[in-house]
């Protein structure tokens, strides 16, 4: 089976961020300050303390864990340090062809 790739990733791939709390690695891509995608791996899911705490009380959300605050902070730090590029800031200025 052919696996197709998201064209957006060839414009700007994901960058590694390590959580300052549990030390787990995730892959991050930021399209803008307010747009973030985060790819976890199995090991990080096991390490994450907030996820573990949430699982213990997850009945109210039908088992869906919303976000890890420590990881979100680590991602912001990663952006500030320049480890995580923001697509908006590196993309070519002309975004839409004038019609």
């Amino acid at each position, binding site marked *: 089976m052919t696996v197709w790739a998201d064209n957006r990733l060839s414009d700007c791939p994901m960058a590694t961020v390590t959580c300052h709390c549990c030390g787990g690695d995730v892959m991050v891509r930021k399209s*803008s300050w307010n747009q973030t995608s985060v790819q976890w791996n199995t090991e990080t899911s096991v390490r994450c303390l907030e996820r573990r705490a949430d699982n213990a009380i997850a009945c109210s959300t*039908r088992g869906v864990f919303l976000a890890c605050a420590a990881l979100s902070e680590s991602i912001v730090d990663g952006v500030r340090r320049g480890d995580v590029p923001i697509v908006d800031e590196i993309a070519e200025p002309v975004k839409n062809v004038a019609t």
Partner: protein
Amino acid sequence: MTLQSNTEEIRQIEAATAPSRFARGWHCLGMTRDFGDGKPHGINAFGRKLVVFRSGDGAINILDGYCRHMGGDLTQGEVKGNEIACPFHDWRWGGDGRCKRVPYSKRAPRLARTAKWTTLEQDRMLFVWNDPEGNPPPPGVSIPLIEGAGSDEWTDWHWYTTTVNTNCREVVDNVVDMAHFFYIHGSLPTHFKNIFEGHVATQYMNSEGRPDLGGTEGARMLGTTSVASYYGPSFMIDDLTYHYEDADHQTVLINCHYPIDANSFVLQYGIIVKKSEALPDDLAVQTAIAIGDFVKMGFEQDVAIWKNKTRIDNPLLCEEDGPVYQLRRWYGQFYVDVSDVTADMVDRFEHELDTTCPRAEWMKVVEANMAGRSMAGTV
């Protein structure tokens, strides 16, 4: 001047044929009340015909629709005791798939079995477990209970069923497709986030009303807050609150389907509404019907697109689109053997969309529509 240079390659739409395999997972067949009357019911699902019947012992059973003797149609048969009797020669089949009795014979062929499916009755819905490998459902993939279902504080289900002639991946794609909610459904998303993990795919969406679309539910309400999760390949529970000027209406919307074959599926949706001071019994029921009709209109808008669009495996995306590829990677876990499920199909993935740019454009459209209406004297 030269002709357009040939350096930029033309992007081709790629699409393999829809899989002939059917997803592993729980599929909702509809309301138990429509199957539990002690008569056999025929269902076309997973590329075959199934017979659904409640036996004398109270269990709802699902078997392959055709008798292994001479191919009689069991859906035309009769429930006798705990068995379904074939209309052709009265062969009796039990819910465990075994031939229990051949009334005119000294003994039934004991070793032969027909295909049977595991069933589940929950919250007044009937579920069937499909697994091409033939394994029973593992405990971790159960369908969560719905708090309001069956409660006096909520309405009963208002349930809708329709057949759609396309592959069911189209309906699942909606989980990540923020922009279509504006262009197809007249809604105005202001917050949009997806989380995929294990067998669950979730969409968080807040939206504002559409004052420019006069006479619709979207014009009357201020907005919605929605948390919708697929539990497995086909069953979505949506905790959906409609915000109105005078009150919030809390609802649960089910959006589910089962495949008939590779190129058609049965789409079903059901709504329950919480009763409140603002919504006593009758009004809550009316609200459930009104919202149900609104949702129905929404799916009809989807169907109109699906009827005419082409299947596409390599969608070309902009930054303001959702994670289509990651959703399909998640969805892929249900189409391979359990031993072939890879970590990236089930590992957690989060994607939060920045709605700033889409919203600015959509507000312009809304304002232009409002201006147009006031010019025409309709406001």
